[in-house]
C-alpha cells in the first residue's frame, strides 16, 4: 500500500474525512515551506497539496495568484519544490505529498526526468491543472511507472462519459471542484455537491475530495459529511499572506486545528447522530 492508500484506509476505519490543505511552495519564502509542512501535520492534516508556483496560474483566483507571485519573487523552481519535499521526507515518512500546478514547468523539465526526481524526493501524487485526461495518456504512463498517483479534477460540468474516462486513469483520489469558477471563489452549493457526489460514486472507486470555495468550519464540516476529503486552499494561503513571519506557523496551526475539529465533528455518515 502506498502512502495515499494507507492514509485513506486508516481514515476509513476511523470513520473520518481527510483534511487536505493547499499551500504554495516558496510562499512566503523557501525557508518557511518545510517548517510549515511539519506544522500542518502537527495540526492534524492527513495529506499536503503543495503548489508549484507558475507565472500564469490560469485557474486560480487572486489569493493563490498572489502566493505564486510571492514565491516567484524568490525564483522558486520545480527543482526547488522537489528539494523541499525531499527535505520534508527526512523527518516525515507517513504524510503523503501531492504536487499541484501547471503543465509548463514539467514540460520544461521533461516527463521522464520529472517523474524520476519526484519519486526520489518522496512525492506521492501529482495534479496538473492543465493536463486533462484527453492529453494525459503518456503523462499518466510515466507517473505510474514511478509509482506516483495521477490526481485528476472533476467539475460540476463534467459529463458522465468523461467521469468514466477519469475513473480509468486516476489513482489515489480524485478532486471534485465544487463550483464553476477559480480557486478562492465563494459560491459553493451544498445541494449540488451532494447530488453530484452520488453520481460520481457510481463510477469512481477511489476516495473523492472536494475543494474550491471551502472557507469556514461550517462548510468544511458539511463537506466532510459528504466527501472523503476536504481540500482547503485559499483560506490557508490568506492566513499565510496576512501573518507576520513570527506568528505564521502558530496562526496557520490554529486555523488548521479548528478545521480539523470541525471536520471530525461531522454527523455520522449512516446514523446522522453527531
Amino acid at each position, binding site marked *: 500500500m502506498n502512502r495515499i492508500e494507507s492514509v485513506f484506509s486508516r481514515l476509513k476505519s476511523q470513520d473520518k474525512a481527510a483534511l487536505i490543505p493547499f499551500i504554495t511552495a516558496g510562499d512566503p519564502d523557501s525557508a518557511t515551506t518545510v517548517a510549515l509542512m511539519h506544522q500542518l501535520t502537527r495540526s492534524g492534516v492527513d495529506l499536503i497539496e503543495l503548489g508549484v508556483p507558475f507565472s500564469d496560474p490560469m485557474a486560480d483566483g487572486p489569493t493563490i495568484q498572489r502566493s505564486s507571485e510571492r514565491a516567484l519573487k524568490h525564483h522558486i523552481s520545480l527543482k526547488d519544490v522537489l528539494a523541499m519535499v525531499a527535505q520534508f521526507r527526512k523527518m516525515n515518512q507517513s504524510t503523503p505529498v501531492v504536487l499541484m500546478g501547471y503543465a509548463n514547468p514539467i514540460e520544461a523539465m521533461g516527463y521522464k526526468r520529472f517523474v524520476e526526481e519526484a519519486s526520489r524526493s518522496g512525492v506521492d501524487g501529482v495534479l496538473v491543472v492543465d493536463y486533462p485526461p484527453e492529453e494525459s495518456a503518456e503523462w499518466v504512463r510515466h507517473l505510474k511507472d514511478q509509482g506516483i498517483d495521477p490526481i485528476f479534477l472533476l467539475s460540476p460540468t463534467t459529463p458522465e462519459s468523461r467521469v468514466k474516462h477519469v475513473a480509468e486513469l486516476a489513482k489515489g483520489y480524485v478532486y471534485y*471542484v465544487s463550483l464553476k469558477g477559480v480557486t478562492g471563489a465563494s459560491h459553493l452549493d451544498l445541494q449540488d455537491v451532494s447530488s453530484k457526489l452520488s453520481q460520481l460514486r457510481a463510477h469512481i472507486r477511489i476516495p473523492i475530495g472536494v475543494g474550491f470555495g471551502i472557507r469556514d468550519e461550517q462548510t468544511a464540516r458539511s463537506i466532510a459529511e459528504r466527501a472523503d476529503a476536504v481540500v482547503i486552499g485559499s483560506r490557508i494561503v490568506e492566513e499565510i499572506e496576512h501573518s507576520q513571519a513570527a506568528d505564521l506557523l502558530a496562526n496557520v496551526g490554529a486555523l488548521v486545528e479548528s478545521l480539523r475539529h470541525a471536520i471530525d465533528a461531522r454527523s455520522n455518515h449512516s446514523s446522522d447522530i453527531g
Partner: protein
Amino acid sequence: MKMYDLPDKRGHFGPYGGTFVAETLISALDELCKQYEYYRGDAEFQTEFFRELKHYVGRPSPIYHARRWSDHLGGAQILLKREDLNHTGAHKINNTVGQALLARRMGKSRIIAETGAGQHGVASATVAARYGMECVVYMGSEDVKRQATNVYRMKLLGATVIPVDSGSRTLKDALNEAMRDWVTNVGNTYYIIGTVAGPHPYPMMVRDFQAVIGNEARQQMQEEYGRQPDALIACVGGGSNAIGLFYPYIGEENVRMIGVEAAGKGIDTQKHAATLVTGRPGVLHGNRTYLIQDENGQIIETHSISAGLDYPGVGPEHAWLKDCGRAEYVAITDGEALAAFHALCRFEGIMPALESSHALAYAAKLAPTLRKDQLLLVNLSGRGDKDMATVAQQSGISL
C-alpha cells in the same frame, strides 16, 4: 505535400495545439466545438458571415501595388493586402464578426475578450454593439496606459474595460483573466479569443474566419496579375493575420510564406517577443506551442514597440508550419519597424500599424535581393492611427 487537413479531431497540429485547460472549461470547449462544427458547414451561417463582411466590414479589401516604395527599394514589387481599410482598422474584425454570429446562435448574451493593442478589444466591442450584446474586455494595466485611445474607443462603443493587474500586466495576463471570467460565467458568456491561440477549437476557428484574407488574395492575384505572388509576408503576434493569409496557400509550395516576429530591442537581449525564432515548445493558454520561457518553464515578459506583437506564445499551427519547414519565421527590431512605418507614410501615403510595420520592414529587406518582376504580397494587417502617440514619443514629441 499531401493534402493538408490539420488540425486533427482534438485540435492537434502535429505535436502542437490540443486542449490543455482545467476540467471546468472542458465542457464549454466541447460545446463550442460541436456548435462550430455544425455552423461551419451551415450555408445560412456562411451566407450571413459573408454578407456582414461585405456590408459591415467593407470587404473585399483591395491589393495595392506600392509602386513608389518598390521603385525606391529597387527590387521585387511590393503588394499590400489592405486589411487596414477594414471597418475598425485591422483584420481583427473578420474574426469577431464570425465569432459573434456564432455566439448569437449559441444563445449567449454576454461576450468577453482579451486585448493587447486594443484592436481586438475594439473589434469585439464593435460587434457587441452591432448585435446588441454585453461586452467586457480584459486588458493588462500596462497596455491600458500604452493604448489610451483604444480604451476610450471601447468605452464609446459601450464595452466595459477591466484593467488586469496580475503578472506582467500585458496581453498574456489579460488572457488568463478572461479565461477565469469564462470559467465563472460560462452559462451566459461567450469568450472571443482574438488570435489563433488558446485551446481547440480557437486556433482552427479563428484561422477559418481569417482565411478570407488569403482566399480573396488568391482570386485577386489571379485576376489582376495573372499569377500568385512569390512570397507572402505577414507579422506574427499570436499569428491570426498571418495564418489568414497563409492558410489558403499552404498547398502551393512555390509560394514562400514568411512570418515576421518582433525582435524588440534585439533577439540577443531579453527584450523581444520572437517566440518562434528564439523560443522552446511548452504549454500555455490551453495549447502546446513555442513559448518564450526561462529554463524552469516560467513565462518571461516580452517586449515589442507594438503591443499587438507583445505575446510570449504563438498559434500552434505556426509552430507546426515552422517545424515542417513549410513557413519561415524571422524577426524585426523596433527600430527597423519604425523605419518601415515612416517609409510607408512618405512613399505611399499609408500609415501602417506598428505590428504590420514589422512585415513591411522584412519586405524592405527582402525586396532588393530579388528581381524586379518578382512579387511580394505583404499583409497590411492594420492602420497606424492608434500608434501615433507611440511613434511621436520615439521622436521625442508628446502629442
